[in-house]
């Protein structure tokens, strides 16, 4: 059932006129999927994988929370607990959140938004998917073979001594790094070289801008992770002594290597989310985005500054005092471009025509949650305070607010926004709204208490804890159940929509970027004819027909190509 197909004042493709074949049924059979070069199918396979791993990571999180119901041992022992939180962190970071928006939603929509038929290197794109799967296999293998208990940060010398499956895990992550790099290379090239006629830099949708900035980070930072993990593997197998103090090495150097990647990586996680939010806010306010260039370029600014602040994870590590000060100082500057984005989004809503459909609900929840997450990041950047808060649940709460409240909520927003486009089906709007609210409540219930616990001194990665924290832990655990219910509901109505959802129109939300100008689901080559772009992607004041130049008027095409 659907009630979103309201009568809209703008002209669009009638559903009945959609071509019979589209990218989902253009070719059939398992092989046509396994060997596909179509960016949409690859994106879809990525989407299925990341959602699968999100559920794996989520189940591990539920197990964690259950164990923390009581201060002492509950149903798993310390060693299991340590393996569970490590896997939770590693699965969520490397298997879920890093590929989530770029490789899944980005893959499906980036070429469409540019008016291209595909990404620049479709084969690399497919390769990147299989490399990702290969890396995931190693991760699962290490799960089965003893697990790994180092935390997702793999700090030496613990990781060089610990008897767990460190090598297979880090090797898996090493491999996945290449998949991330290939995605980045592909996207940057695509944005540079594959834009449709008229699609100038100033008319790129902000989602594309954000994927571009993300690509830059992926290309510049991920190789360093690769070499770090390679050195770690060598440290374990050969004892090369660069990081292991027992052999004359320096463990703090490892931390530099690791965070040189992993701090910029947090912007690989969030910047694509920013891109989605820009799309949502403009479309559902039916209003041109406020400060287009500010929003577009601040992504690049974040990408750049983000490379200079990694040492804020190491304030207590024994790094030199000089670098501690420099890192703290620079850390705050990431807040400026981020703040600019937030303010521009809010300003976009001013005097808009706001439709609180599910994606917009997620966008608003995102703004609230991410601002909390970001401001607590500022708290952690402040030297004297971070000395107290470092490695406590305050940090845990901070990063769940930015990653779960930020990226995951943006991801959900994007998923709902584009769902009609790539599946061709509508979902149940009422259930979707209910689920969104449940998730919002559950999320805050899970992680707000963690701020308090952390400030009170509850350290992270603790299997057992002092009795005084029990109440707050229990709130948090109950919250995680609410989250679980919320996600089950989401899974339910999305599956229902696939099975018997109403046919989606081409442009259910009144968007202006190119993906809304083609049929739902898109044709195998995205557009029947090469589009010609004359207006910006947020020019809601221009007649919709002018956004369809070249697309539904076949006589237009080749002359412009």
């Amino acid at each position, binding site marked *: 059932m659907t009630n979103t197909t309201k009568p809209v004042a703008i002209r669009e493709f009638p559903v009945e006129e959609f071509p019979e074949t589209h990218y989902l049924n253009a070719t059939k059979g398992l092989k046509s999927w396994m060997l596909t070069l179509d960016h949409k199918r690859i994106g879809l396979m990525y989407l299925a994988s990341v959602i699968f791993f999100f559920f794996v990571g989520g189940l591990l999180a539920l197990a964690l929370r259950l164990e923390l119901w009581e201060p002492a041992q509950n149903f798993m022992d310390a060693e299991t607990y340590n393996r569970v939180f490590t896997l939770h962190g590693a699965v969520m970071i490397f298997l879920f959140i890093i590929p989530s928006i770029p490789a899944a939603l980005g893959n499906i929509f980036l070429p469409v938004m540019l008016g291209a038929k595909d990404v620049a290197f479709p084969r690399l794109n497919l390769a990147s998917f299989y490399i990702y799967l290969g890396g995931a296999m190693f991760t699962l293998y290490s799960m089965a073979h003893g697990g790994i208990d180092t935390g997702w940060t793999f700090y030496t010398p613990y990781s060089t001594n610990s008897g767990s499956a460190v090598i297979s895990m880090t090797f898996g992550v090493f491999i996945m790094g290449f998949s991330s790099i290939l995605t980045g290379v592909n996207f940057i090239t695509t944005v*540079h070289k594959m834009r449709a006629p008229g699609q100038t830099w100033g008319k790129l949708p902000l989602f594309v801008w954000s994927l571009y900035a993300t690509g*830059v980070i992926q290309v*510049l930072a991920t190789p*360093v992770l690769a070499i770090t993990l390679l050195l770690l593997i060598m440290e374990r197998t050969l004892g090369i002594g660069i990081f292991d103090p027992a052999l004359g090495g*320096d463990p*703090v*150097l490892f931390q*530099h290597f690791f965070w*040189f990647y992993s701090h910029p990586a947090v912007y690989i996680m969030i910047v694509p989310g920013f891109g989605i939010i820009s799309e949502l806010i403009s479309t559902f306010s039916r209003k041109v985005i406020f400060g287009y260039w500010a929003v577009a370029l601040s992504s690049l600014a974040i990408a750049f500054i983000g*490379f*200079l602040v*990694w*040492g804020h994870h190491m304030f207590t590590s*024994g*790094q*030199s*005092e*000089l*670098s501690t*000060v*420099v890192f703290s100082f620079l850390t705050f500057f990431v807040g400026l471009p981020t703040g600019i984005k937030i303010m521009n989004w809010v300003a976009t809503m001013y005097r808009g025509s706001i439709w609180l459909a599910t994606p917009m609900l997620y966008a608003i929840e995102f703004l609230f949650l991410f601002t909390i997450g970001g401001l607590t990041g500022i708290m952690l950047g402040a030297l004297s305070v971070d000395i107290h808060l470092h490695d406590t649940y305050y940090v845990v709460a901070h990063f769940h607010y930015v990653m779960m409240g930020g990226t995951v909520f943006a991801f959900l927003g994007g998923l709902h926004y584009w769902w009609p486009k790539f599946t061709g089906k509508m979902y149940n709007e009422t259930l979707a709204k209910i689920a969104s609210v449940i998730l919002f409540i559950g999320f805050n219930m899970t992680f707000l208490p963690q701020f308090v616990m952390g400030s009170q001194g509850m350290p992270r990665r603790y299997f057992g804890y002092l009795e005084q924290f029990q109440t707050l832990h229990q709130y948090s655990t109950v919250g995680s159940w609410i989250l679980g219910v919320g996600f089950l509901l989401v899974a339910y109505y999305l599956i229902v929509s696939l099975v018997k959802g109403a046919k989606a129109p081409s442009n259910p939300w009144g968007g202006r970027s190119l993906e809304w100008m083609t049929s739902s689901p898109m044709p195998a080559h995205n557009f029947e004819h090469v589009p010609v772009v004359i207006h910006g992607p947020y020019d809601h004041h221009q007649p919709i027909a002018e956004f369809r130049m070249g697309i539904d008027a076949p006589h237009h095409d080749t002359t412009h190509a």
Partner: protein
Amino acid sequence: MSGHHIIPMKFLLGTAGALFVLTALTVAVHYIHIPAPFNIIVAIGIAVLKASLVAMFFMGLFWDKKINTIALMLSVVFFVLMVGVTMLDTMFRDKPFGIYDKAPAPPATTSAAP
């Protein structure tokens, strides 16, 4: 078309010749034993020169689209940042800030283990 520039023979041979000469030079300089910081500076200076020759003429950046040069420069810039910022730590570990003028005790020498 810039991407399809055919590099003239004289550039290729000239570049190779220059590279051979510079290699010989850097080895020669090694045997002269220039004092401490300058030997590294000279060695790296020559290496950078050689690298630029390769990038410009063998790899054709001299004639190519600017974006490719920008990409290469970007990698160099970020590499330098990585080195520079890491060394803010590794080179200054034992130099605490004495801002409150309470001289910190010298690093302990005896082991804590009994």
